[in-house]
């Protein structure tokens, strides 16, 4: 979609700026040459109203389709994560052994998220204090986390690796440092990682703040 718009606007840009500079040069004042006396041309007005209108409607419809794919319906999946944003921390919560949220065996980690490759994951965004925005530039994913609302987005990673998470909505003095790391793993690796996490929480009372033993949060 970005490239479609780039082509359309790029062409319009080159044309109009070209005409602007050409006219400015071509019709500069010269002695004895009088300006053309004209008040306009209705046919031209109609043409340059209709042509952009058609192109914009086309862009609108094309964008609508893509938007529908992103926001329309979330593919059915068991893989769910709850993200609770607060000043200045991303709390990432997995269901844990019992397959339910908000129970003692939830796996809770901070400023890092692990996702399995190739499987759709539903991310439920919440915010504790002010508005934050969950932004993973490499995924082209951005969604505000709003106090009082739970907003669902979904991702389906296509490549393993580490990707940065940033906050994209001004949330106070720590806004610029509200950084996290998203790690995409092979499904098998992910299962192993999850087992290890669950083993860390399951027996004890879930104490969310201390529940991130495996890796130190990235600085």
């Amino acid at each position, binding site marked *: *979609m*970005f490239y479609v*718009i*780039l082509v359309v*606007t790029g062409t*319009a*840009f080159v044309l*109009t*700026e070209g*005409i*602007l500079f050409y*006219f*400015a040069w071509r*019709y*500069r*004042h010269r002695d004895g*040459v*009088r*300006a*053309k*006396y*004209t008040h*306009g041309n209705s046919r*031209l007005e109609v043409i*340059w*109203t209709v042509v*952009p*209108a058609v192109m*914009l409607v086309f*862009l*609108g419809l094309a964008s*609508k389709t893509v*938007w529908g794919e*992103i*926001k329309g319906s979330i593919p059915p999946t068991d893989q769910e994560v709850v993200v609770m944003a607060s000043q200045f921390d991303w709390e990432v919560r997995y269901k844990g052994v019992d397959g339910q949220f908000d129970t003692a065996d939830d796996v809770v980690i901070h400023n890092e998220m692990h996702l399995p490759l190739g499987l759709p994951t539903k991310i439920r965004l919440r915010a504790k*204090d*002010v*508005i934050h*925005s969950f*932004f993973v*530039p*490499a995924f*082209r*994913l*951005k969604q505000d986390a*709003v*106090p*009082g*609302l739970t907003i669902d987005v979904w991702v389906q990673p296509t490549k393993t690796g580490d990707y*940065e998470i*940033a906050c994209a*909505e*001004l*949330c*106070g*003095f720590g*806004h*610029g*440092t509200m*950084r996290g790391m998203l790690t995409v793993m092979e499904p098998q690796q992910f299962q192993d990682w999850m087992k290890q996490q669950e083993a860390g929480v399951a027996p004890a009372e879930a104490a969310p703040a201390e529940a991130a033993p495996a890796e130190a949060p990235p600085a």
Partner: protein
Amino acid sequence: MSETHEHELPFIRKYIFSMDHKIIGIQFLFMSLLFMIVGGFLAMIVRWQLGFPDREIPLVKYLPDSLNPADPAHYNAVFTMHASIMIFAVIIPILTGAFGNYLIPLMIGARDMAFPKLNMLSFWVGFVGGCVMASSFFVEGGTAATGWTAYPPLSAVPEYTGVARGQTLWIVAVLIIGTASIMGAVNYITTIVNMRAPGMHFFRMPLSVWALFITAVLQLMATPVLASALGMLLFDRTLGTHFFAPAGGGQVLLWQHLFWFYSHPAVYIMILPAMGFVSDILSTFSRKPIFGYKAMVFSIVGIAGLGFIVWGHHMFQSGMNPALGTAFMISTMVIAVPSAIKTFNWLGTLWGGAIRFTPAMINALAFVSTFIVGGLSGIFMASTPVDMFIHDTYFIVAHLHYVLFGGSLFGVFAAINYWYPKMFGRMMNQTVNTIHAVLSFIFFNLTFFPMHILGMAGHMRRIYDPTLYEFLKPWQPMNQFISVSAFLLGATQILFAVNFAYSLFRGKKAEANPWHANSLEWVAPSPPPHLNWGAHVPTVYRGPYEYSSPEVSEDYLPQNRPLVGSPTPSRTVMTPARA
């Protein structure tokens, strides 16, 4: 500046608490230009911090502590105040307050505004608002630090930012400035509807007046909505209400809807007058009638009308229902059509002209050129899926500066260059201003064009140190390039400021019509006397764009010059309420 005929007013009534629309316009002009210096200075601080986060700003120890951006909380305060000052205390007052006041009565052939006393009140209320905003630099905790958009809960609860009084002062200041702008709008609408000179039909008004008229309607309809939102926010902060606090049953997104219901029309408040000025200036210096006058008028009206139903495009990622996003996307795409019509008509005006490259004209051409970029980049963010990535990145920062600096501010430079002789009776140095215009255009593009690229790389807005992120580190040289260009852009403005001040006292005396223009303000002497016209207001025989008309040998034909056989219009002349 203005000479009164019969009775000489005391200095304080003539120049300070004046009811003369020209003096009030000039007061607004000086106030906004002073604030522009403050706002520009804040921008330099922002750019230093982004380009060179590891280095201390030279002389920073001499600044108030609240302006040192190395502390991230202060960085937030600095860009918040940059935007708030530039929007509420510079662009809106300079376009509507300064030029609206100065030009409307002169261009329609009236003696003054319909309500001169209200006009005076509008300036002094606005002035108080500006002072309240400026005072927040000196209170404990510093200024507001929640962006000019002041989204709650961040702005509603002092503990979230650590700023207590500064944010409250910000709310009060914007409320006061809004009140001033409503007073102005009522005056402009009444004046334009009722006080046009004989023969000045609506479709003989210059596009500047049309633009100011429609802008006033926008202000009148949108500003009260902002006032209501600000009132609720103030109550949330000070009285413990919960309009925007979900814990008390409030709705966080309510603010965004109300705020953008005002602030999107406000975007057009900030650009439409500049479009009007540029239309007049392009026509004058092309020595050619404006191309498609009525299409221009209808596109102003169209932009203003559509401007009320596009506010949701600021909220695609806010958690608003995605279906609404689609509706707002379509309305936003549609608003590009009247903008395109205007651009094509400007090009049509140049076509076949005999263009004179005065500084006003160069600034007007710079306006058209940058407005094209700003308009086209708007289409990217109008598209919901694309906006998902570029929202809140430097792509947006680039876009808004192309429209507000490239658009509004080049429009303002063009307008100051064009009407300065009329306002002050003296010419500015044309060579200096030509250099200023060309350098500003170059440095402007070097500053803001690369921001599009940063935005496409994902560079977030409002972060104080991009080098904290791995994916942004490779882009730091570009940030430094932008900063250096911005400093040069800032330095170029010194040329203009010095020329402006010097010419006030030493400029060459200006004649009544130095540009050989047609509209009525050029009929009055430079500067025009109190009540503008001598014994009789001018009579209008034609539209303002009769350049190079075959009916006369000169290449211009003023609106008030009777030709053999032109019918004499009759209409009762209304006078200002005080006269």
